[in-house]
């Protein structure tokens, strides 16, 4: 044993002492004192480096490297502490000893629940080979009604109370106008989804809003059938609500599809047993769908017999309401931050730090 010899564990001890002294140095002067004490001409580490010659040759390089590394780290620490002192942090303890104190926090944010649900839906359809298409919200009567096979002055227009800008221009009541706009510009085959805002001139109540999000789907090819429609819609419902959800197609009427259907899924609340939410039917309507009407193909400039296709449309607000059991559609546009934040910050009932 060499009494004044230096070894690895001694060096670690030295680094520990230095670190603690640096971190508690209250000002630049005392910091400089610490620096001189360790790194100065007669500093502990300088002396240690000089004494390296007393070690057996085989140990010298390792100990030398260790000393240099420690010197570098101490330098960095001093630099860091200097900045802290300059920032006025000098009188705070760097680690106050109670890890249960809350961390420094920033404001938290997150996406709107409607967009969160819409993104999930889009991702499912992207996976199925649908591409995105868009259209204007202030739309021509032509695309919203006429080209979708709504006869002029026909009562079927009454089922969709419309906001008008003038005789020819309106706020679209559905995302379906995108169908014709897209087909005018693209040749089949095509498979698109088109989400967007739509407008209905209805006095808002818990289940009706004057503006809401809808999403259209359209698939046109040589031999697309009702069977294909059932396939895609069923896949979608299983992907979004789980494969236990059952889907059924009920005949219905839309001017721009024929045959047309309304699509129901098993009630999320009672799993089909029947409850007040589903009006005891066990089923909940989630979308309208059908085979594209030949007249719509004519308006789009396709030879009607050359292709067949299906289309569907769903209310994103409605799906979000079903998914989260939201009781009133108006909450979705009310933008109460306490309502919105529960979808990314946890339930409102939880106490926030």
């Amino acid at each position: 044993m060499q009494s004044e010899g230096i070894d690895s564990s001694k060096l670690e001890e030295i680094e520990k002492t230095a670190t603690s002294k640096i971190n508690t140095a209250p000002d630049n002067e005392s910091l400089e004192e610490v620096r001189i004490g360790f790194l100065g001409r007669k500093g502990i580490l300088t002396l240690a480096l000089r004494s390296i010659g007393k070690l057996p040759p085989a140990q010298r390089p390792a100990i030398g490297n260790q000393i240099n590394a420690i010197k570098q780290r101490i330098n960095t620490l001093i630099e860091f502490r200097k900045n802290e002192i300059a920032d006025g942090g000098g009188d705070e303890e760097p680690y106050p000893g109670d890890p249960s104190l809350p961390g420094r926090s920033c404001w938290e944010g997150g996406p709107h629940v409607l967009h969160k649900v819409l993104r999930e839906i889009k991702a499912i359809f992207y996976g199925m080979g649908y591409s995105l298409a868009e259209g204007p919200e202030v739309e021509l009567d032509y695309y919203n009604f006429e080209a979708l096979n709504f006869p002029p002055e026909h009562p079927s227009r009454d089922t969709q109370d419309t906001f008008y800008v003038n005789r020819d221009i309106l706020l679209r009541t559905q995302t379906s106008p995108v169908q014709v706009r897209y087909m005018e510009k693209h040749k089949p085959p095509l498979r698109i989804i088109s989400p967007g805002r739509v407008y209905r001139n209805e006095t808002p109540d818990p289940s009706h809003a004057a503006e809401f999000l809808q999403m259209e789907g359209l698939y046109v090819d040589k031999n697309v059938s009702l069977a294909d429609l059932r396939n895609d819609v069923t896949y979608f419902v299983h992907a979004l609500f789980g494969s236990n959800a059952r889907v059924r197609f009920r005949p219905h009427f839309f001017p721009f599809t024929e045959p047309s259907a309304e699509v129901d899924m098993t009630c999320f609340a009672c799993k089909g047993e029947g409850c007040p939410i589903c009006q005891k039917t066990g089923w909940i309507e989630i979308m309208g769908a059908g085979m594209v009407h030949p007249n719509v193909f004519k308006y789009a400039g396709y030879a009607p017999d050359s292709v067949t296709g299906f289309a569907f449309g769903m209310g994103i607000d409605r799906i979000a309401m079903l998914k989260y059991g939201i009781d009133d559609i108006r909450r979705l546009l009310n933008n109460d931050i306490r309502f919105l934040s529960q979808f990314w910050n946890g339930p409102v009932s939880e106490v926030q730090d």
Partner: protein
Amino acid sequence: MKVSLNWLKRYVDIEESAAVLAHDLTMFGLNVESVETKGPDFSGVVWGKVLTCNRHPAADRLSVCTVDAGRDKPLHIVCGAPNVRAGLSVAVAEIGAVLAGGFKIKKAKLRGEVSEGMICSETELGIGDDASGIIELDFTLTPGESLDGRLGHSDILLDIEITPNRPDLLCHFGIAREIAALYNRELRFPELLKLERGEDFSIRIENGNDCPRYSAAFIDQVEIKPSPEWMQELLLAVGLKPISNIVDITNFVLMETGQPLHAFDRDRLSQDSILVRRARPDEKIVTLDGTERQLNDNVLLITDGERPQGVAGVMGGQESEINPGTKRILLESATFGPRAIRRSRQCLKMDTEASYRFEREADIGVTVEALERACWLIKETGAGQPSLHYADNLMDNSALETRRIELRVAQANRIMGTQLAADDLVELLDRLGLESREAGETVVTAVPTFRRDLKEEIDLIEETSRVYGYENIGREEERKNSLFASISVADRRNEDICFYLASRGYTEVITSSFMDPQDITRFEWSRRDPRGNPVKLENPLTISQSVMRTSLLPGMLKVIGRHPVPDREGMRIFEMAKVFLRIDDSQGLPEEQLHLCGIFTGKTAPLNWAQKQRSFDFFDMKGEMEALFRKLNNYSDIEFVRQKEREPDHICSILINNEKFAECGMIPSRIAGRYEIDLPVFYYIIFMDLFPVQGFSPTRFSYISPYPGVKRDLCVISSDRITFSDIRTVIKKSSKHLEFIRLFDYYRGDHLGEGKRSYTFRLGFRSPENTLDDKVVDGIIDRILDNLQKKLQVSLRTE
């Protein structure tokens, strides 16, 4: 539309329970929205069968029975009725059921024998006076099935959603026809009093589009009295108030056949004739509801040739109204054009059962049959003596022809995804009353007048799919995969930005597309400003929602204003959405621009023991924007310039290559005040359409120097005519080894001298080739100072 189950049963056998029928109709395309039971409540009363019946060991007049009521084990019931015997179908009140008069069934012991329910008599159920014995049911159900709606005068109402293409379903007979098709059952037609054409009566029609057909029947010796009880019951069930025999019969026929009828008191007509014409602007009429109405030439009238006697297809007139003294009747059964009725109805703001049906195109082929039906009822109930001749003016004979449609078998299978044969299709169509026959590769169908909604092949394909059953189509079909998705880069960029902002602590909001015209005044936008000239709605919900938004700001401020003051401690919200500017395109549509708006108010961070809270300010916002711009584009020259012409102190435009890409600033407090906000509010609006859709992405990676960098601090003094941006540009151009410039102190105190400012920078240098030594860095610093002095008269701060 509400239909009565009892009424439907007049035309078709219905054995199914209401619940089953409602489900089956719904799946057939007639969406049953609700099922409602009218009359006595029989909940807890079920159909049962007596299995055994033995004398009570302790009481002569009692029997001990076992009854199958659908439970696991037969019920043990003690019964006192003399007519109870094994094999009988009975009404069983289970334990818990509440009978007439509130009598509740409990488990009981009768002279030592347990009784688990009661076999009911008419009085116990409150449906009759016969208390002498139990009811012997003459129909069979599954044991345990509810007797709701199957006993006494009770009825079940189905509320069915009728889509506008199916006017034929706006009546009981039409619904019954669908039920017959659904279950493949026989349909019973209502009884008619056969009438001959040829009554000598003048019916003139001004325009065949307004009124394609007008038929009339004539009744003498009318005796006004109440209608028969069975009719009153049915009318009441569907919500019509019985009035008198003649009025009730017209209503009954309307609800039965869908054809609106109107009865005129023939003696009150000023001339014995009918003329259907448009009203003249100076005319008036008092309608049956007692209202005097000013007319114009949009309104179609029934006149007697001289005076208006009714608004055609909407409501009759008071002048010739049926009254207790009426002796002779003219019964109208006409077809009016949907557009004419729509205009009349809109003009007079009246909605009636009749107008609703005419607007959806009433069946032109049924006018005479409806008269014959009414006459049969009038004769049968002794309401009067119908003439055996009717009068009829049919403007175009071809209107009654059946329409022939050819259905290609291959096309039907192509659309449905099925492999049906021609005769399968014929069978499916026949069930709906659509007479069809096979013709090689096609099926030819003759469409009767009541299904005018069937116009072409695709309509027949829909009918065949419906009868075949959507649920039977395509269970095993494989998904075709000829197409692959292309993800929209713009959409993905927008989603990325939204996620990014959410992670920076912003809450995403979705505000209304509508704006209040008042918002324009509140924001002081002039009419020349596109924001001051919005797209207006002709028929808004309210004035405050009457224009399309031209900016996201008003909606965003309202979100803040809606939160109570204590909740505004730290609000950072954003929305990415469309605004509508009147830069009309060739089709007259406004330009829809995608904007991103961020709004900040309150503190920069939540209250926390370890950090100082301070108010959000302009440079916090600028920092937000700078970080965002790095995600949106890779232009380096983003300039924030004051928008001098308007709000010199508060608002900046953000220029990239001299084009305005965004705007930011503090909302002037007088404007914020108009939204009930008294804290400073900072905002930015970024015009998303102006940025490249892919967002920022480098084309190649950059080389990272392995050598250490050097830092130097530098303090300079300048005049206030020089901006930070000028100084930064000079420094940047002075050295290729410059890695960063951090301004960490800025000062404009008095002792510097009038109009002087001092800036302290930390500059970082790094070379890709070697470690920079002090001499080289000193040289760079000298060059920087030299350039600053020469170009900007900015000098080193010395004291």
